[in-house]
């Protein structure tokens, strides 16, 4: 197997809360790999730690109140990003690793033209002249499918629609041909027809530019359509990790199973769906007080006494190659319990 491009090991990002009500362990021992050219989907609900994980990779966590705990390790192209000097880190950010955010409205600067903002990274990282950088910006606008790029390059963000702004964000992120693109909910703020356009665009650009994509989303439909592998997060931890087809065919963590069952679906007949939706009881606990034992046990239909006391490690699913499909659940040691429950 090829070497991973990005290797995250035991990442712990904690925040000290204002009222002194304790430490929020937003990301608490997360490990995963991203391989060159692949799309890794990271799914989970609000507060599971998926965004904090991505911000930690680029060291964009504000300190204080946040801090990445000693013992955490993030290796990219053979170097530990957590120990890089600021200057070296800047050479990685926006150059080798780029990021796009959910809010195309607020992540663009309203007082500069989009051309100026797209060209900035090329001027800083590739030392292009202003003129050359502007030409590159126009090329990038063409690449992301913006009509009249020669004219649009001088427009300000407010003159563009949400979908267009997200295309500008993508152009800005890709101008230096990064090896890794971190896309944090890139289509959440967009309408469904525009979302389809942006997802197509990301697919095409990934194929053309050969970069790896870490796609962070809450939408299992998007993951199913775009990701090669999926990491499912819950309460600051990875609870399941598998190739996409495997995860959807055989979800083994009760949380993944519940999440898949609670999505209202379009691909079932109306007669089948007019009943009750499956729902996961309760809600995600607070990051300052994760439950003891398995963090999902208070909401889990299969939980037994061991789950409340002992935290399960990531276990290999039976039948697969080690490390391909891993699950943080004691059920894997006692599969009979799942069948008896059904």
């Amino acid at each position, binding site marked *: 197997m090829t070497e991973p491009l990005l290797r995250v090991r035991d990442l712990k990002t904690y925040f000290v809360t204002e009222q002194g009500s304790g430490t929020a362990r937003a990301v608490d021992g997360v490990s995963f790999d991203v391989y060159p050219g692949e799309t890794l989907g990271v799914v989970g*609900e*609000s507060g599971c730690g998926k965004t904090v994980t991505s911000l930690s990779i680029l060291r964009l966590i504000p300190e204080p109140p946040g801090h990445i705990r000693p013992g955490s390790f993030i290796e990219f192209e053979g170097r530990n990003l957590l120990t890089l000097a600021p200057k070296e880190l800047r050479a990685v950010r926006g150059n080798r690793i780029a990021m796009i955010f959910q809010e195309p409205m607020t992540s663009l600067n309203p007082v500069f033209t989009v051309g100026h903002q797209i060209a900035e990274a090329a001027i800083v990282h590739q030392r292009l002249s202003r003129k050359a950088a502007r030409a590159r910006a126009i090329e990038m606008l063409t690449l992301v499918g913006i009509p009249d790029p020669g004219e649009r390059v001088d427009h300000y963000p407010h003159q563009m*629609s949400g*979908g*267009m702004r997200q295309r500008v964000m993508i152009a800005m992120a890709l101008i230096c041909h990064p090896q890794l693109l971190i896309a944090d909910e890139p289509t959440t703020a967009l*309408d*469904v*027809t*525009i*979302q*389809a*356009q942006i*997802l*197509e665009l990301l697919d095409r650009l990934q194929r053309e530019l050969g970069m790896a994509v870490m796609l962070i989303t*809450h*939408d*299992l*439909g*998007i*993951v*199913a*359509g775009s990701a090669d592998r999926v990491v499912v997060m819950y309460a600051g931890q990875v609870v399941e990790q598998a190739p*996409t*087809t495997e995860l*959807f*065919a055989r979800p083994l963590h009760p949380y993944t199973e*519940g*999440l*898949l069952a*609670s*999505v*209202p*679906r*379009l*691909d079932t*007949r*109306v*007669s089948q*769906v*007019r009943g*009750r*939706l*499956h*729902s*996961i*009881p309760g*809600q*995600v606990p607070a990051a300052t007080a994760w439950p003891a034992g398995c963090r999902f046990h208070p909401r889990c239909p299969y939980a037994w006494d061991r789950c409340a006391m002992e935290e399960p490690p990531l276990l290999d699913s039976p039948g697969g190659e080690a490390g391909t499909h891993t699950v943080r659940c004691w059920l894997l040691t006692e599969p009979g319990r799942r069948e008896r429950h059904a």
Partner: protein
Amino acid sequence: MTHAPLVQVEGLVKRFPGERALFGLGRARRTVRAVDGVSFAIAAGQTLGLVGESGCGKSTVGRAILRLIEPDAGRITLGGADVVALRGRELRALRRRMQIVFQDPYGSLNPRMTVQQTLAEPLAIHRLATAADAKRRVTALLEEVGLDPAFGTAYPHELSGGQRQRVGIARALSVEPQFLVLDEPVSALDVSVQAQVLNLLADLQRKRRLTYLFIAHDLAVVKHIADDVAVMYLGKIVERAPATALYAGPRHPYTTSLLSAVPVPDPKAQRQRIVLEGEVPSPAAPPAGCPFNPRCPHPKKNDRCRTEPPALREVVPGRFAACHFAEQPM
């Protein structure tokens, strides 16, 4: 359909004046026809799903029905009562029968009021309960929406998104309405919580025999809850049909495209995704002819589509579509 309609809307129009340029100088821009001749009926105890993308006018329809904004033209009746003609006390009395639940459970609750105060206020306004009685009613309401009555003393910031939305639903139910406008009630919620709230809405509907106008952009969610579905584009309904029929075989190319754009949580589903070109045009300057024609992927699209706006017509009994080629859907 066997039930008589509870809510009837005919030819609803709402225009918003175009904004002036900077500092109110210059000539006013063209009027925006946010809602442009919308008609539908909802039978008692049924749910109409009203779907469309941002800016299509779906929320404006919901608000105009409740007279939260004044419609410019059209007829709206609730159980035979003329909603548009009523004024003052009579309108207030009618409002008791129709309520709204908003999308944003963060912005729609008063942060300075406890849950108890929020739920008791409508009871006081409509003089439905004495102070002592109100407390008992609030407890019952909280239990009905699946919240521990202990939440009565909590402030909104102490609640999660799902809990706030339950409070929003309880507030709407407090005056015992017949009709609820649900404006994107689960869009802001996480998937697992969204399912809880959808189940709650379905249970309440059955128990209280409520009639819903369910406004949403998510076609999968609407499929789950609606009996009938109306699809809006640029202020007009472009397709209206029973949910079963609409999802099985849409008649308007916009509905077809919308359905194909929704990501399905199944990696093996090899779907033909129709990616629409361009974006929704400004409602201040809708295209001539069929408003959807510049983006329409229908292979039969022709000059007629560019000049003659198609009327919403009954293609087969009970199924309406505004497309010249509704008989030959994509």
